[in-house]
């Protein structure tokens, strides 16, 4: 089994916005943790899910695949997926993979919350 070096905490900012704080590695091993975190964040009133990558240590293509899966679920719930805290390298990867087109990236929590409330 893949080793898990991941932790995700969910913060409900308000009934509409939830933030998932990611600590560690986003790889195939993070699948269940991410699923659980989204389940926790996904309240009936939740309209925006925000991923906090400030604690991201490592992300690989499997992790990108998990984000795509999460994105599919979020879209089904008519929700929005936003992110912030990505390093330059992973921003580059988000751009390469065009994930940045589907997950809007912001530099700080303040910026992303402002954008979320404006949706």
């Amino acid at each position, binding site marked *: 089994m*893949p080793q898990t070096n991941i932790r995700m905490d969910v913060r409900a900012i308000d009934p509409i916005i939830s933030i998932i704080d990611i600590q560690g590695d986003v790889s195939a091993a993070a699948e269940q943790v991410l699923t659980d975190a989204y389940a926790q964040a996904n309240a009936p009133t939740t309209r925006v899910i925000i991923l906090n990558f400030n604690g991201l240590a490592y992300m*690989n293509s499997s992790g990108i695949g998990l984000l795509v899966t999460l994105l*599919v679920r979020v879209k089904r719930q008519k929700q929005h997926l936003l992110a912030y805290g990505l390093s330059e390298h992973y921003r580059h990867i988000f751009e*390469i993979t065009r994930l940045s087109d589907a997950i809007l990236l912001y530099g700080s929590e303040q910026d992303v919350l402002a954008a979320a409330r404006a949706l």
Partner: protein
Amino acid sequence: MVTFQVVSRTAQLTAPPKKRSRRFPRKLFLVTHVVTSMGISALLFVAILNITRSDYAFILLPVLLSVFINGSRPYNLDIFRSSTPLYLLLTVCLGVIYYSVVTEFVLLTHPASVGIIYVTVALAWAIILEPVRAYFQSIIERRFNVRNREAIKAVAAFTSTLREEIDLDQLRERFLTVIQQIMHPYSVSIWVRATVQQQEQSDSPERSVIAIASDDALIAYALSHPGAAEIDRLQLDSPLLQDLKARAVEIAFPLTSQGEVIGLLALGPRLDSNHGVFRLLRYGVIGLLLLGPALNEEEYAYEDLALLNSLAAQVAPALRVAQMVQEEQQQVRERERIEQELRTAQAIQLAFLPKDVPVLPGWQIAPYYHPAREVGGDFYDFLVFADGRLGLVIGDVTGKGIPAALVMATVHTMLRTAVLEMASPGAVLARVNDLLSAEIPTGMFVTCFYVLLDPKNGRLWYANAGHEPPFRQRGGNASELWATGMPLGMMPGTRYDEYEAALAPGESLLFYSDGLVEAHNAQHEMFGFPRLQALLAGNANVASHIDFLLAELKDFTGAGWEQEDDVTLVTLQRILESYRMNEQQEKLHLLRESTVASVSGNEQQAMEWMAEVARPLHLSHERLDDLKTAVSEAVMNAIEHGNHYASDKEVVLQVLASDTAVVVRVRDQGDGKQRPIFDPGTPDLEAKLAGREASRGWGLFLIKKLVDELYIINDEHSHTIEMVMHRDGVNTGEHTSTQEE
């Protein structure tokens, strides 16, 4: 046709008994014999009477009569020795009574007669009364069972062990022996249905093989008339019958078992064996005693035939059992012989196939050879020249087994000898053809395709001696590398045209033998050239053409396919040039090499290792991050898709550097079954989000985007991902190349 193995025994005589007719000539002979004997007896009697002048001379008359009628056949003293006193007493009494009655009748009817009239009357009474005497004698014989005493003993001894005898040869010999003992034939032969092996081993003069039509009239007669058949009496339209008559066979016994004629016992003329009493008996039964002109011309008595009938009824099943045992033993031996021959042929074949495959930079050569159960004579060879050129030969010898393997070995040696003197494929084939034509067995020949390759530039010179031309694969196209010529060994002096071509990077040749294209499936369809060509054209990017074609062949033939012929495949591929192959290759040097176990998560370990190794190279922070992620992705790919998370398999990492580039190679170990890695192109995010594609599948795409050049090298056993990062910090743009080795 029904084939019989015939085992015969013939008495050791200077000449065989005369063939005699059974009807009128026998009676004529009998009468002549009797009359002559009577005449001689009468003359002697008259002479004795004149000399002695005594009436007691008449006493001698019956004695003389018996002596001359019996001729050279003395009484069988063995009979007397083996008989009981009572039997001897009765026999003597009967003789005395016979003598007395004859004498009394003579005296009563012609008391005063003298001379020739007296003699004639005496002889007449003797003849008239002999059947009566013989009749009573036969009663005595039957009562004491004298005649068959020895025969019955022999038969009893034979039949008592009959059930234990399962050796056909032994049984047959013992049967012939007992027949000789009880029947005393001049010749006796036993015909038993022959196996194929017995038919092939029919060179023994005592064990000939005779084939007769299965619908021969005599066979039908034998089935419908069990028991002895007297050959001379039969009138059938039967070639077998005519043959038996020509062989002087008198009695034929069909040996039948379960409604099938499994053999035939043929007896020739009977030899006399001093059975005097027997002869007398026979006179009473079949009336032949007086007609037997010679001791070796007796007929068989009814008792003989009855005994034989009984014997045959017991022997036939025993023969059948022994025959089945022998057939089984022969089959076992034949199987062992064939297996040994197959092993020998395969050993010869394999001994002459190359042990190693030449390693040529920029080229990938892969052979495959799998012999059929019965080796078919396929071969291939690699001939390495001092100037770096490579000769590649593939061929097929007609025929199978050891002969084909031996010819293959001969051709192999001739080819290797010829290339010492010349390199030109046409000249080599011509030389081998001339040498081979003088030595190859009639009806055999060898097909052969010879290619001479200059690996530096991909130029090919080739000639063909009747072999299937190789297929040349270029992208999505497959065409034959056409050349024609007579097979080797067919016609001395044949010239072979030489052709020239060039293989570009990425192109390949597939050499093959007819075992592939002539394979049949359960529906009797042939794999065929068109199928092979279409498969090659439609699957240019497979990692291994050999594995791919073998998988296709397996799918085509289905489970349980018995390989009909050797299957030989050789691929010659000019691989695409990777970074290591280009002009900068000489400037690259290996910085570090390491391995990681195929455990998920170790890609991060590789990533850190990469960072450490790359530190002296002074890559920018961004480019180093890109390279680290690319290496991580490549290692993860190797762990998952190459080594399938087998923790005992390693992923090999190499970092090479030149003044202008850093090259990282990541190679898995594979399992020989892995699918090739291809450039997947750009993932379609919309399709993934819409659920039309899996969410995964980003790895190679990421690598391609993160490094300056990407090469994917698929070979027979592993995948190598080669990533190039330029040190000037300039990404020259996307460059990806996939190649199969």
